């Protein structure tokens, strides 16, 4: 009944070959096994979005995915959004607009915002409201969050007009240059519980 299932998942660019119990969720695997506590555990019914991660490039509530279902997949958590210590334009825009109040929902908001901008480079305000409808903010900081995402979209558009970099990254299926996974990523034996 409680046999461990071997899975291999790429998390934030690193291959993790681990054994998990089938009744544990992707969220539990990320937080408890990998120590990636950026994704928050909150409603556990798919309403609040605090646990949002990208699974194979698409945003999902990690509380509603079993860890075993992620076998063979690629997961990006909020910890994997920024690269080399540099904030993404979305993250910087959240800071600039005071979008983070208590901060609890922000990892999910950031991941959803990246997923939205990857799918829609020029979102309207309504697009942002719908794209982030699955992320609740109990501080009710929605106005600043929406402004931050719109501002980030504008900055991506300006950057792509200058260099074409963000546009190329988006065309390649990645929200922005900072979240492209390192193709040379190797298994991290130290962090992978065996």
């Amino acid at each position, binding site marked *: 009944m409680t046999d461990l299932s071997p899975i291999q998942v790429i998390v934030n660019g690193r291959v993790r070959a681990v054994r998990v119990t089938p009744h544990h*969720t992707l969220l539990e695997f990320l937080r408890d096994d990998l120590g990636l506590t950026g994704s928050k555990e909150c409603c556990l019914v*798919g309403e609040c979005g605090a646990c949002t991660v990208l699974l194979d490039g698409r945003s999902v509530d990690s509380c509603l*995915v*079993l860890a075993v*279902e992620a076998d063979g997949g690629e997961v990006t958590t909020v910890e994997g959004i920024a690269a080399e210590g540099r904030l993404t334009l979305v993250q910087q825009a959240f800071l600039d607009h005071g979008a983070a109040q208590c901060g609890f929902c922000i990892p999910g908001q950031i991941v959803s915002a990246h997923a939205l901008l990857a799918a829609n480079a020029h979102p309207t305000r309504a697009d942002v*409201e719908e794209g982030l409808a*699955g992320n609740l903010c109990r501080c009710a900081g929605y106005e600043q969050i929406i402004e931050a995402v719109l501002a980030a979209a504008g900055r991506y558009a300006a950057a792509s007009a200058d260099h074409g970099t963000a546009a190329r990254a988006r065309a390649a299926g990645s929200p922005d240059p900072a979240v492209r996974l390192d193709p040379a990523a190797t298994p991290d034996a130290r962090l992978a519980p065996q």
Partner: protein
Amino acid sequence: MRPFSYERPRTLAAAIRILEATGTAATALAGGTDLIIDLRDGSVRPDVVVDLKGIDEIEAGIREEGDRLVIGARAVMEDIAADPRVRRDFIALAEAAAVVGSVQIRNRATLAGNICNASPAADTTPALLVYGAQVVAVGSGGGRRISIDDFLIGPGVTALAPGELVAGIELPLPTQRRGAVHVRRTRRRGHDLASVTLACAVFEGGSVRLAYGSVGPRPWLVTDDSGVLADPAASAEAWTAILEPLLAAASPSPRSMRAGPEYRLAMLRVLARRALDVANRRLTNGATA
């Protein structure tokens, strides 16, 4: 969450074998957006969870086959809502799929899972009823087609036999021009379950198919061939005379926390008129959906 073992069969035959051998102790898993909640709160307590996502025969895509559009049982709401063929020929289904849960939910939730869950408030079922969808069920005895009207029995109950799986959902391609729409009422904009959910199609010949959910134990399909509802110039009284008997099957539960029965019945009438307005306008504007 109560422990269970996990199987990810590669073939339909293997999945059916596991489901038949395990009986009621096995549960099929597609998107999981309903099932994992049930597993966590203990309302579903399987010994074995059978994940269908490793089965190539169960498609994740949408394809045309003869006079039908076939939506694979692994196709997720976000892809169905964005599919150009669904948007062209089955706009009410695209609109319904686009309001299920949030983006995160729609990236996982499948149409097949939505109908198997058989929630009275399911947003996609009224559109499937209006379009005359057929459910392709597969079991050890082979495959069979079940009309969506026969498939949906009651809350959480479908016509699926033990050991049977849904492999796909077929939509007959339109044979005449029609205008269609999905509308619903929720407590809040954004992410919420429907207090009333409704789809309708007006055909160029004047007939109307209308289906409504979240106002009874299962969604309800009605048809009208009077031509009155397809006539935007008809009086409000004329529409009321036709609509009232059509909406009479609504029997909202007084126990629901989302909305009281009086409110739902009132909103059902508002939504039916709004939907007919939009469907008539779409028909006039030359839509085929």
